[in-house]
């Protein structure tokens, strides 16, 4: 199974072997693939996105006795208290606004067993000069107008560290996963598509200029390597 180096690097000093694990916000199941490759006993991949659930299921379907894909809102994670030994939030927090982030952090803490490990991988806020900021700005603008919430928030590592510490997680280490972060044409196109999807929900007077701006910005960015992706590791002092 194709495990990105980001995930492999974030997990390689964590005690995954034989553990019951939760990938919070499964995306396309990158961390689930990594946890399975690292010999997890069982992995729950939780996502509220039907496409992501389907993709993750397809990806790990061959490992059905170890992996379970659950479609659910992480703010009400359908797992019992103290039931998980390793939790990953790989590139999750940036798609949560502050209110959702706080609620999700509380839930991840509830399902984690005493002594559990938590890995939080995410992006530092981009430098001012990064062109790709313009793309995330129009993506957020479209999302704010359509759904009254930001699509993306890049939280500094120092901030997430303090947030999870507030929920009782002891900080273990910080690693740099990517520096710079390669926003390839495929990533840029994926974000442009997400922005267009949000814009499509708007009335024509807003939709048309916003869509044109999304096209223009995506074209202007092309691809760019900028920013930093980090990995924080914690354990639950219980």
């Amino acid at each position, binding site marked *: 199974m194709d*495990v990105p*180096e980001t995930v492999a690097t974030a997990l390689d000093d964590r005690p995954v072997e034989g553990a019951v694990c939760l990938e919070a916000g499964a995306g*396309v199941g*990158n961390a689930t693939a990594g946890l399975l490759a690292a010999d997890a006993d069982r992995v729950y991949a939780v996502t509220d996105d039907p496409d992501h659930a389907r993709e993750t299921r397809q990806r790990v379907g061959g490992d059905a006795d170890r992996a379970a894909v659950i479609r659910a809102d992480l703010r009400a994670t359908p797992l019992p208290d103290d039931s998980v030994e390793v939790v990953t939030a790989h590139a999750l927090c940036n798609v949560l606004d502050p209110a959702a982030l706080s609620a999700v952090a509380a839930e991840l803490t509830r399902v984690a067993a005493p002594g559990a490990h938590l890995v939080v991988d995410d992006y530092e806020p981009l430098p001012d000069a990064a062109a790709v900021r313009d793309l995330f700005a129009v993506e957020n603008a479209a999302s704010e107008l359509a759904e009254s919430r930001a699509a993306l928030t890049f939280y500094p590592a120092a901030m997430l560290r303090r947030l999870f510490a507030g929920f009782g997680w002891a900080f273990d280490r910080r690693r*740099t*996963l*990517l520096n710079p972060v*390669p926003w390839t044409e495929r990533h840029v196109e994926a974000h442009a598509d997400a922005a267009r999807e949000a814009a499509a929900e708007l009335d024509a007077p807003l939709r048309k200029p916003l869509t044109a701006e999304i096209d223009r910005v995506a074209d202007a960015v092309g691809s760019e390597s900028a920013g930093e992706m980090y990995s924080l590791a914690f354990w639950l002092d219980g």
Partner: protein
Amino acid sequence: MATVPESGMETRTLGTTGHDSTITTFGAIALNWLEQEGANQMVEHVLDHGVNHFDVAPTYGDAELKLGPKLRQHREDIFLGCKTQERDYEGAKRKLHRSLDRLGVEKIDLYQVHGLEYEEELDEITADGGALEAFREARADGLIDHIGLTSHADPGLIIDAVDEIDDLETLMFPMNPVVVGQDDGEDGYEDVLDRATEADIGTLGIKAFADGPWPPTDELAESDRPFCNWYEPVHRPDEIRERFDFAASQGLTSVVNPGDPKLVSMVLDAARRYDGMDEATQRSLVEQHRGADSPVPQQLHH
């Protein structure tokens, strides 16, 4: 062991050969596209940068002939690798003597099995009457010092060769962010590097500067390609440096320049300035090149 001599370019020990090779090896195929005077200048330019390991082959047009004059002038300063695509005893012996004649030297320091591709070839070269018999005889006669192998085929086959050839001292194989990012469950070139390092076999990286295949010939005719490489190379100084740093930081003994003479000077400069590459930057390059042919769908994150 890595050291930086007065010449300014880092050297690393080439496995059990004991030779301290510079971190870039001059791929003398570049001489094939130059007239003799230009070839002489190129060799002087390469030596001025402190490069002490050269690699050539009889299949590189007339590169052996063009290397000859300056090689003979500076023979003591150059660790010379050559190779043969012959797989049987007679053919390998004939080609070795032909290379010695064309180069005009009495000894080749490193003689390599060139371009191993199939399992049957490995069987043939290692069998009685195979090429390795000629290699070993030549070593006993003092015509060569060390035995190596080059391949850009299946990494598993290269590892088999390591297991089957006890006196193999060097390997030459591809190393770049694309091959490092490939993860299909089979052995990769990283595994070749690990196996070679474990066995104290010197490692020479090729394809470090490959950007991808050329566009189809109906879009870009072969005669309109701006570089002579059979793949499209990276060619901006910052890209060349990035690719050099990546390959050298994987732990190879030495990185071979791309075959186009227009790119050689940039590689020499990158090698002189090499100062490692941190792991997050290496991963960034791998991630940048991953995905084009990944089975994983388009995604927002890394």
